C-alpha cells in the first residue's frame, strides 16, 4: 500500500501547500502603497558594542537617512563631505553608463553575455567607499561597482567582457566574471553562493594572522537559500570572523521573487538572529544609509566584535541578464513604480539640497562618463571582440589547470595545436 492511500481522517483539516506569489504579475498595475517604509532617520543607531540581541529590531525595519526632500536625517547620517558624495555619485553614473554600453555590445553580437546592476548601483559603490582600500571582497556578478569605485580600469573590464587579447583571464571566464587581487575583488563564481563562506574563511585567515583587514561577503536574495549561506553564517558566528556579510535583496532571482527564498515570512537580515550576530536592514538605494551601515559593521569587525549581516533592500530595475526578459513574469512598469526610487536621483537630489550640485554639473559628469566609457570601449575593441577570439594561443587553454602542465594536458595541447580548431 502506498502511503498516500492510507485512509484520510475527515475530522482533520485538509492540509494544503502554500506557494508564494509576488504582488504583481504581467497585466497587473503595480501599486506599492501598502509597502511599509519607515521614515528616514527614525531608526536608532546602537553602539558598536551592543549585543546582537539589542540589534534585533534593526533587522525588521529599514535604516534610512535620506528623506523625501533629499535631506540627511537621523543618527545614521554618516556626515560625509561633499567630495566623497560627488565621487560616489560619479561612480554610480559611470557604472550605469558602462552597463548600458556593455549590454548594447552584447546585443550587437560583440560578446555572449552581460549583466547589469541598474537600480542597485549605490550598494557596491558606497560599500567600496566605506571600506578600507585593502579590505577584501568576495562579490557576486552584480558588484561591478566595487571595481569601478576602486578605480579598476574600464578597459580591463571590457577586455574581460570581450574575452579578447587584453583579457587577463585569457578568455577563460564568462563575461563579467572578473577577478582582481590588487583591487580586493575575488574571482566571481558562476555557482551561486559559494563565495559567501569563502569570505568568512578569508576573514578567519586574517584573524589567524593577527592582520587588521576584513572580508566582505556578498550574496543575492535568491542565493541566500543555498546551503553556502548557512555555512558562511555558521562559521562566522562560531569563530567570530571579522567579516561584513551583505545580502543584496533586489527582490528577484531571475523569474522568482524573494518570497521563494523565504521573504514572505521574515527579512533576510533577520536570518542573523539565529546565529547570534547583528542583522541590519538598510535602504539599499540610499547612499548615506548604505555607507553608515557598512561602516558600522566594518568597525565592529575590526574591533574583534565579529561579523554583521546587512540586508540591502533594493529593486532589480532591469532583466536578470541579457538572457532574460522580465516582462514574462512581472509588470514592465514595476521598476518605475518602485517607491524607493533611483539611487542616483536620490543622491543627486541630496547634493542639490546641500547646494553642492546642480543639473548642469550632473549633465557634465554624465557626458564625461559617457565619453570615458566610449573611449574605453574603443580601446578595448582594438584588442578584439568575442567572435574573433579563441583562434590564437590555443595552447594557453592548457595552462593554469595546475601550476605545471602534466603529461596528459601536454599531450592534449599538442593534439589541439596540431589539429587547429574548427
Amino acid at each position, binding site marked *: 500500500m502506498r502511503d498516500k492511500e492510507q485512509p484520510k481522517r475527515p475530522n482533520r483539516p485538509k492540509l494544503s501547500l502554500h506557494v508564494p*506569489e509576488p504582488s504583481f504579475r504581467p497585466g497587473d498595475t503595480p501599486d506599492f502603497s501598502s509597502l511599509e517604509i519607515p521614515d528616514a532617520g527614525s531608526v536608532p543607531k546602537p553602539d558598536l558594542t551592543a549585543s546582537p540581541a539589542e540589534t534585533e529590531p534593526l533587522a525588521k525595519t529599514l535604516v534610512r537617512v535620506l528623506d523625501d526632500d533629499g535631506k540627511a536625517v537621523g543618527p545614521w547620517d554618516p556626515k560625509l563631505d561633499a567630495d566623497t558624495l560627488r565621487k560616489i555619485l560619479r561612480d554610480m553614473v559611470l557604472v550605469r553608463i558602462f552597463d548600458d554600453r556593455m549590454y548594447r555590445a552584447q546585443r550587437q553580437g560583440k560578446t555572449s553575455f552581460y549583466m547589469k546592476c541598474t537600480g542597485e548601483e549605490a550598494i557596491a559603490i558606497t560599500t567600496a567607499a566605506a571600506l578600507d582600500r585593502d579590505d577584501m571582497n568576495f562579490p557576486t556578478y552584480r558588484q561591478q561597482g566595487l571595481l569601478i569605485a576602486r578605480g579598476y580600469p574600464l578597459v580591463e573590464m571590457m577586455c574581460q567582457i570581450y*574575452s579578447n587579447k587584453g583579457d587577463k583571464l585569457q578568455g*577563460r*571566464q564568462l563575461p563579467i566574471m572578473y577577478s582582481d587581487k590588487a583591487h580586493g575583488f575575488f574571482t566571481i563564481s558562476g*555557482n551561486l553562493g559559494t563565495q559567501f563562506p569563502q569570505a568568512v574563511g578569508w576573514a578567519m585567515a586574517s584573524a589567524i594572522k593577527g592582520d587588521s583587514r576584513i572580508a566582505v561577503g556578498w550574496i543575492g536574495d535568491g542565493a541566500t*537559500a543555498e546551503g553556502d549561506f548557512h555555512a558562511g553564517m555558521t562559521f562566522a558566528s562560531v569563530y567570530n570572523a571579522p567579516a561584513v556579510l551583505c545580502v543584496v535583496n533586489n527582490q528577484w532571482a531571475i523569474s522568482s521573487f524573494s518570497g521563494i527564498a523565504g521573504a514572505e515570512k521574515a527579512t533576510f537580515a533577520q536570518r542573523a538572529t539565529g546565529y547570534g550576530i547583528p542583522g541590519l536592514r538598510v535602504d539599499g538605494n540610499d547612499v548615506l544609509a548604505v555607507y553608515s551601515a557598512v561602516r558600522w559593521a566594518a568597525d565592529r569587525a575590526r574591533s574583534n566584535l565579529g561579523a554583521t549581516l546587512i540586508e540591502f533592500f533594493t529593486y532589480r530595475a532591469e532583466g536578470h541578464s541579457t538572457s532574460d526578459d522580465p516582462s514574462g513574469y512581472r509588470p514592465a512598469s514595476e521598476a518605475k513604480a518602485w517607491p524607493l526610487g533611483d539611487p542616483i536621483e536620490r543622491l543627486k537630489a541630496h547634493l542639490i539640497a546641500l547646494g553642492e550640485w546642480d543639473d548642469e554639473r550632473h549633465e557634465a559628469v554624465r557626458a564625461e562618463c559617457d565619453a570615458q566609457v566610449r573611449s574605453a570601449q574603443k580601446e578595448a575593441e582594438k584588442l578584439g571582440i*568575442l567572435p574573433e577570439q*579563441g583562434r590564437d594561443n590555443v595552447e594557453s587553454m592548457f595552462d593554469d*589547470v595546475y601550476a605545471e602542465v602534466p603529461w*596528459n594536458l601536454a599531450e592534449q595541447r599538442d593534439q589541439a595545436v596540431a589539429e587547429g580548431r574548427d
Partner: protein
Amino acid sequence: MPVMNMIQALNSAHRVAMERDPDVVVYGEDTGYFGGVFRVTEGLQKQFGKERSFDAPINEGGIVATAVGMAAYGLKPVIEIQFADYIYPGYDQIVSEVAKIRYRTAGEWSMPMVIRSPYGGGIFGGQTHSQSPESLFTHIAGLKTVIPSTPHDAKGLLIAAIEDPDPVIFFEPKRIYNGPFDGHHDKPVKPWSKHPASEVPEGHYTVPIGKAAVVREGNALTVLAYGTMVHVALAAVEERGIDAEVIDLRTLVPLDIEAIEQSVKKTGRCLVVHEAPRTSGFGAELVTLVQERCFYHLEAPVERVTGWDTPYPHAYEWAYFPGPKRMKTALEKVMAD
C-alpha cells in the same frame, strides 16, 4: 504527426505524464510561473495548478531532498536542476540518499523520481553553463542515467523515466534543444523541423530505458556517442565518407551492452566520443567494456574523442568542443591503425 523541437517534446512529455498520473509533481528554480529558463516546463503551472508545478528556492540540495521526502510519501517528483553545472550542491542527496534508499531499505522504500538538467557545451556558456558531468553519476550504483539526442527520443525517454520505478538522471543536451547541431558552428543551425526525429506523437509513448539506437549502420567501425555528439559524429562520418556504424547510447546506465558488443564484433574498430573531459569520463568505461568483451575482435585500439582535461574555457569554445575536425582525425586514426 506534430513537429516539435526538443523543448516542445520535453514539455509535451511532462504534460502527458502529469495528465496520466496525479502524483507527478514538477519543480525547480524558475520552473513554475515562468516555465523554466529554457521553457521546458512552460504552461504546466497554468494547466496543473501551483501545487503540482511551482518555483523552488535556489538550493539544489533542498530540491533533491524534498523530492526524496515526496517520493517517500508516494509522489513522483520530476525536478529540474537549471544547469548540470549546478547539480553539485545536490550531489550528496543524490549519491547518499536517492541512489541508496531502495538498497538500504531492502526495497521497503523506493525513489521514483527524475532529475532533469540541461548539460553540455557549444553555447558559449563558459565554465559554469557547459559541463557534462555524466560520469559522476554513472559511477553511482542505484542511479540510471539517460541522455536523449532527438525530440522523439527526448519525449519517449522522459515519459519512460517518469514511469520508471528507479531514480533517473536525465541530462538534456542544451545545444540541440533547438536544432541538431553537427559541430559546424560557422554554418547556420538547422531547425529540428528538417529532421525526421522531430515528428513526435502528441500523446503517450515511451522509448525504453536501457536500449541504444543504431542511428547509422556500417561495417568499418563503430562510433559510440550520446547527446549532441551523436549529430557531430554522424556529420563527421558522412563527410569523411566512412562506412561507420553510429550508435546513440541514449541510456548510459543501464547500458545497452548487447548493441555495443554486436556492433564492435562486426566492425572490429571503435571510437568513443563525448564532450566531458577525458580522464575518468564515461568514455573510459565504454573503452574498457569494449576491450573486455571484444578484445579478440579489435583490429586497432579503441579511440576516445572527448573534451580536454581542463575547465570549459569561454572564448575557446570551438577549440574545446570535440567538433568535426577532431572527429575526423580520430576516425582516420582508428581506421589507419
